[in-house]
């Protein structure tokens, strides 16, 4: 698979078919852990690794797997990868592991992962599946981080607080802009609002693009 198509696949995951914004998959962690930027970013990275690993393994074994046993095998692969990631987090990012808590093991239940295994990795070669894993994972990570950023800014009045959870060292308060904030943003409804705004924002941008393209005479295909 050449470089261009690899990049193309990644772009699809990042924007056109973003798992959170378009496929609306994996919303449980998206809504639950995004109360701060660092939590969103870290869970996103963990999901990215699991997604890449599971896509590669599913794709590499796709010729031997009979369709009737494919689901238990996906579950096996994803569950072991998540266990490995959890152990790695506990060993090298213990405070992050505490802050994300149950949501690391719960990556198993993120339907974005099993969906990519079923829809993409089981039908495409390893290279394309890896690109798909990177693209989808990065798209999911960016969305988690963005939602976390907005909720933290409005709810706590801080930016990038607690980056020490990810990089170690002294506690970092981040940029403190206000003492406390609008509570609603860090409560569960805030997650729904932030996600709704993100989805709406993507749709607006896509519409604008189509309009521009059609006025320039390139033909207006409505992007998915």
């Amino acid at each position: 698979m050449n470089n261009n198509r690899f990049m193309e696949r990644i772009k699809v995951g990042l924007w056109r078919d973003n798992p959170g914004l378009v496929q609306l998959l994996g919303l449980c962690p998206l809504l639950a852990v995004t109360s701060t930027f660092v939590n969103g970013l870290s869970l996103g990275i963990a999901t990215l690794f699991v997604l890449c690993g599971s896509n590669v393994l599913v794709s590499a074994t796709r010729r031997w797997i009979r369709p009737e046993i494919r689901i238990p095998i996906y579950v096996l692969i994803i569950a072991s990868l998540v266990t490995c990631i959890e152990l790695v987090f506990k060993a090298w990012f213990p405070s992050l592991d505490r802050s994300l808590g149950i949501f690391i093991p719960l990556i198993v239940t993120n339907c974005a992962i099993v969906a990519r295994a079923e829809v993409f990795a089981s039908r495409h070669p390893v290279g394309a599946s890896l690109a798909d894993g990177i693209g989808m994972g990065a798209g999911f990570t960016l969305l988690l981080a963005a939602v976390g950023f907005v909720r933290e800014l409005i709810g706590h009045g801080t930016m990038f607080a607690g980056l020490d959870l990810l990089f170690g060292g002294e506690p970092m308060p981040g940029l403190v802009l206000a003492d406390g904030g609008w509570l609603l943003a860090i409560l569960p409804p805030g997650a729904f609002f932030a996600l709704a705004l993100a989805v709406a924002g993507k749709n607006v941008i896509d519409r604008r693009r189509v309009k521009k393209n059609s006025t320039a005479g390139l033909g207006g295909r409505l992007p998915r």
Partner: protein
Amino acid sequence: MSSSVVKSGITLAAIAAVCTALVAITWQLTHERIAENQQLMLERSLAPALAGLEFEGRISESMLLIPPPHELPGQDTAIVYRVFADQQPVAALFAVTARDGYAGPIRILVGISYAGEITGVQILEHRETPGLGDRIEARRSDWVYQFDGHSLGDPPLSGWALQRDGGQFDQLTGASVTPRAVIKAIRETLVYFAAHREELFTAPASEAAE
């Protein structure tokens, strides 16, 4: 039996074996670090409840498990860390659970000096409302520090309550269930300590549960 079933079974078994090996290798590579981290995390979480008291040895090695039934808050096994200096008891740290919080159990660490004064209170775990009840956390407000230096006689037992309930301690605006539960747990721990002080410090250390 059809051969396709056998083949599927073999494939499943093979992949299960590979996945198990993957997890086993990762565990091999990480388990020592994880144990070390947990030890460190424990010591670090205990330190603030000690108010800079001098001590010797590793606190985590003096752990005492008190299985229910006991008169401490919560119905689960309570953990006590004894702190010694020159073989003399200095303080005891109680990890107890308040069951009457607003959202699930609140794990509280209560440090009590041998003389019976509070050396520090830390909230270990909770799921209270962000922005309201979570101000019991030391990093969100100074609320938990108001207990330092107080003991069972100061204020008297009836004073160990929120001001709103006729006690001596500050409340948290917008939250009453949470701080009430925390104060009650501290009070019960103090009462238990007063009643069982000597046996607490002479009991042999419990084996750490894996």
